[in-house]
């Protein structure tokens, strides 16, 4: 009797579970397999523009990649190295300059909606002066590459070994919105470790170990 009750309860549970998942059927994947994940970010930042067209080096912004396990997301003041001068896209600025020349006035400061968010985070007003009493806030970037807690990936080791950023992150310089390009599963990591040990990286021999404790501790 007890047996049947348990079966019944569990069947109902299974039914509800499937029902709840119905909406997300289109995005089915195995657990922890997030290939193609490209969430909306708080600022519509384009790697294609910065890394691709402008050719800014990855390490300029992700400056910890050769120093720490984390590559690091640039702090707002790093953005300001350029964006205290560049306040909007080049086209918009050029248009305003042309307009100003035509009207014989000084060009207005044009701030794009996206950069406005950056200045907000620093507590700056439209003329880039600090707002009294404004508390600077971090920009809540959404994590794209998110390994499980029991995996310890260290950027330093890979940068030092000469692994290119694109090897794991894909053609970032062509991405309008950042997405997870590779599967980043354990099998994918191990395959690369084995191949690198066999063939070396850029002709340099490496010893990419596949012991569990290289990543799991």
């Amino acid at each position, binding site marked *: 009797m*007890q*047996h049947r009750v*348990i*079966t019944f309860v*569990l*069947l109902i*549970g*299974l039914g509800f*579970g*499937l029902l709840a*998942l119905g909406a*997300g059927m289109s*995005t*089915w*994947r*195995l*657990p*922890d397999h*997030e290939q193609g*994940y490209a*969430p909306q970010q708080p600022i519509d930042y384009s790697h294609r523009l910065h890394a691709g067209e402008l050719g800014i080096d990855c390490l300029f912004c992700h400056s*910890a990649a*050769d*120093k*720490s*396990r*984390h590559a*690091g*997301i*640039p*702090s*707002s*003041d*790093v953005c300001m190295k350029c964006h205290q001068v560049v306040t909007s896209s080049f086209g918009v600025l050029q248009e305003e300059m042309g307009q100003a020349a035509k009207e014989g006035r000084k060009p207005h400061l044009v701030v794009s909606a996206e950069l406005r968010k950056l200045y907000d985070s*620093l507590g700056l007003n439209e003329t880039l002066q600090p707002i009294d009493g404004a508390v*600077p806030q*971090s*920009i*809540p*970037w*959404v*994590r794209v590459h*998110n390994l*499980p*807690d*029991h995996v*310890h990936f*260290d950027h*330093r*080791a890979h940068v*030092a*070994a000469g692994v290119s950023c694109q090897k794991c992150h894909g053609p970032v310089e062509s991405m309008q919105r950042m997405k997870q390009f590779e599967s980043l599963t354990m099998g994918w990591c191990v395959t690369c470790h084995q191949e690198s040990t066999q063939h070396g990286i850029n002709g340099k021999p490496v*010893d990419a*170990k596949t*012991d*569990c*404790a*290289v990543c*799991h*501790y």
Partner: protein
Amino acid sequence: MSRNTNNTYWKSLAERDGHADSESPAPQRAVANGLSRREFLEAAGFTLSLTTLGGCGRAPESTALPFVVQPEGMVPGRSQVYASTCGGCSAACGLLVGVRDGRPLKMEGMPEHPLSRGGLCAIGQALPLALYDSQRLTTPLADGKVAEWQAVDRAIAGQLAQLKASDGGIRFVTNTVTSPTLQATIDAFLAPYQDARHVTLDAVSCSAILDAHEKTHGARVLPHYRFGQAAVIVSFGADFLGTWISPVEFTAAWQTRRAPTAEHPEMSYHVQFEGRMSLTGGNADRRFRLPPGQYGVVLSHLASKLASLAGQAPPAGNLGESPIAEHELDDLVNRLWDARGESLVLSDSQDLAVQLLVNRINHILENNGKTVDLARPSRQRQGRDAAVVELIEELKAGKIAALFVAGTDLTHNLPDRDALVKAIGKTKLAVSFAEREDDFAAVAHFVCPDHHPLESWLDAEPIAGLVSLSQPTLQPLGGTRSILESLARWSGREDSAYNLLRDHWRTAIFPRAKVSSFQAFWDQSLHDGFAEFEAPAATLGDFQMDAVAAVGVEATDGGDILVLYSKVGLTDSRHAHNPWLQELPDPTTKVTWDNYACVSPATADRLKLADGELVRVETSAGVSIELPALTQPGQHDRVVAIALAYGVRGTDRFANIGPQWLEGRPTVAPGERVGKNAAELIAVRDGRLHYDASGVTVTKAGGRRDLATTQEHHSLEVPPHVAPHGAEVRDIVQATTLADFAKDSHAGAPHAHHHGDTQFWAEDHPRTGHAWGLVVDLNKCTGCSACLIACQAENNVPVVGKDEVRRQREMHWLRIDRYYSGAGDDVDVAHQPMMCQHCDNAPCETVCPVLATVHSDEGLNEQAYNRCVGTRYCANNCPYKVRRFNWFKYAHEDPLQNLVLNPDVTVRSRGVMEKCSMCVQRIEEGKIAARQRGMPVADGDIQTACQQSCAAQAIVFGDINDGHSEIHQALQNPRQYRVLDEFNFRPSVAYLRVVKNREAPNGGDHHA
């Protein structure tokens, strides 16, 4: 030959007497028979498919918050290390604070520090847990209610202004203040008042030593003991390796003479006279069981024998009959006399006559200026008990108008609490600077919480001429305020602690250093953490012979003798809020989460006491305490020993620590505290606080309180009835004597039968690269347990609570096995740190059905948590019993304390096996750092957490394959052996045999 020292080790009296049954100690319950196996599997199948379905959605979105403006030099994910000074006690050891992403996480010893030399004790290791404690006060309190700083300042300033006009007394009570800046600030604060005094109250006072030096040398100083220069050490009760004055420094110095080699088979000779069994006594070469009341008579005999050798007059007075045999005394006298200038006699006694005799003996032996440094004295204990006694009288008489208390819990640490609390009620103003609402703070008018040591600017001068700085490693977590700022503000100067400290250094410290630029001096001191300079020698008078008199045998009324002591890790009631320290098994008794009355086996027999049964200990003054009894081998038969610093206000918070489940029992009963406060039993005699008393009655009280002891947990012994013939006795701890060692450096090695030398994975793992290993020198290891807490901090080891410890479920990756040996009442103690042995032929690896524990190319036995399904086969098959199973998802009792977690180490979940990883995160870090530099890993680049903090430098880690490494050398040591070597597990951890400096194999035939 010397084998006879090997086969006699036992962990508990039950084991020695052959009725230990460590297989089934905890109550077991049959599984309720509600569900058949088939039903269970079906249900499990459904659940599994449900969870799989549930996992098919997106992972929850998580954000990554960068800095708005990144601080210069900070790299996310990297530790920055700051040199500082440990604020755990007044020993003031050198500290390296690892700060990760703004959080101080790991305390390490500072190798350059002249005193602590890289060591750090359990208390120092546990500092960050106390920092992230939500029970620390975050605001000042006025009459127990939350208040604003401004209001409190105004109220206190108002009271003080009235005091200036009147002649009411003002007293400032602190523990020993080693900080020159704090001392100057207190002095400046008290200066304007007519009747103002600074009173020092130490948790355990050394007043008699200072008082004795005042009599014999004309200066009230505490000598700086130099154990490194002592060839013969005779300690009367002083637990200098465990808790006394500056144990890390003393251990670091003591160990330098504890490593005999085949070429130089020499080591110091350490004799301990004591009533209870202390950590130091267990490490002595020769230990005499002697109650504290008889120290004087033995010292009188030593003094008079030595005086006659030196051609001096013996101390005046009659000699009583010595409790120690004449030939023993003569032997000791001869050894001391031969080591003149290289010997050291010391005592923790609070009896002035005893300390005077100690001074006389050191004087005869010409130790002053050598092993006993009086010219550059220690400032680590300054308490003058007479002042404390006077303060109590004044308080009772209502003469004190204002009372300030910092760094000590006045009412907790003194006897007759209720009368004291009543007397404090007579003051107009009582102010506490406590971090938490302690016993005194609860009766104080105002509580002005000081910062945690890791949040504050301060300095220390533990030894005259050695000044160190303590710097903040994070912004204060709450609204606390540095005591320097509070005092300066009430003295009319509003300034930051940094400015106050810097100003004092500019005006008072810098001139002493005799360098040209203050800025350079400050920067260098801040960088190094300390500065050393020549201090003017203390002015000492000629030795006053007349002050010293012989002491006869104390007339006793035949009662028992009480000894109050501090426990390793809990030397001060302020640390009672630290769950790591509460769950630290006492190095000798192995009990956690409690204090208890230690009695000798004979007393236990006499009173028919079993461990955990309550006894009532009553002093001749009629003060009594009821505590569970614990049988302590090696203790004097008339001595009952009780630890101080328990029963601390607020420890009822630990009721719900550890997992809460159906059969779980609270660590402390609701409303109760951890242990009981034994300070009520402190006796005030001759103007001093005495931690021993005679004429005590011990009776069985009825009832019991189970003790959570790890004594018989994880035993490596084999039950005799299942042992194969000839293998009943295992040589887990190997020991020899110096006499035997000098003849044969391999002495002490057993002649066991070896089960082949097959290597399982020789082809898979050729061990051509690194081969990590660990060597532990058991002769240096004192058992102080600093490594245990270092491991806990580094590896996110959870606290499980008293009930789980009782069920053998403590999670410590590194345990310290304590073995006794010896047949009579005099026992020897051996400590053996035991962690995963990383066997080449690991029995755990072959039984894991999911390959969660496997071997690495570098000789590590790896545990992949996410692969583990929790069969526990590995733990069952582990011969060393070092694997720990997560029975629960252990949450921190206090969520703020999650900030202490090391992000380099996975926090393990329920149902997963874990164990020592040989700090693989540090190995990986070291390898990556080396790769970055483009260099091979150098010896010493990688240090395990246990090795780093070891004051005795007993642990060596390194690459066995590196022919120049320290570990390679250590493995060539003739004392080297591996535990259970006869079974050919091929462990990567080796031990160095114990060598006791004695002729006879065992001290068991002597008695005191």
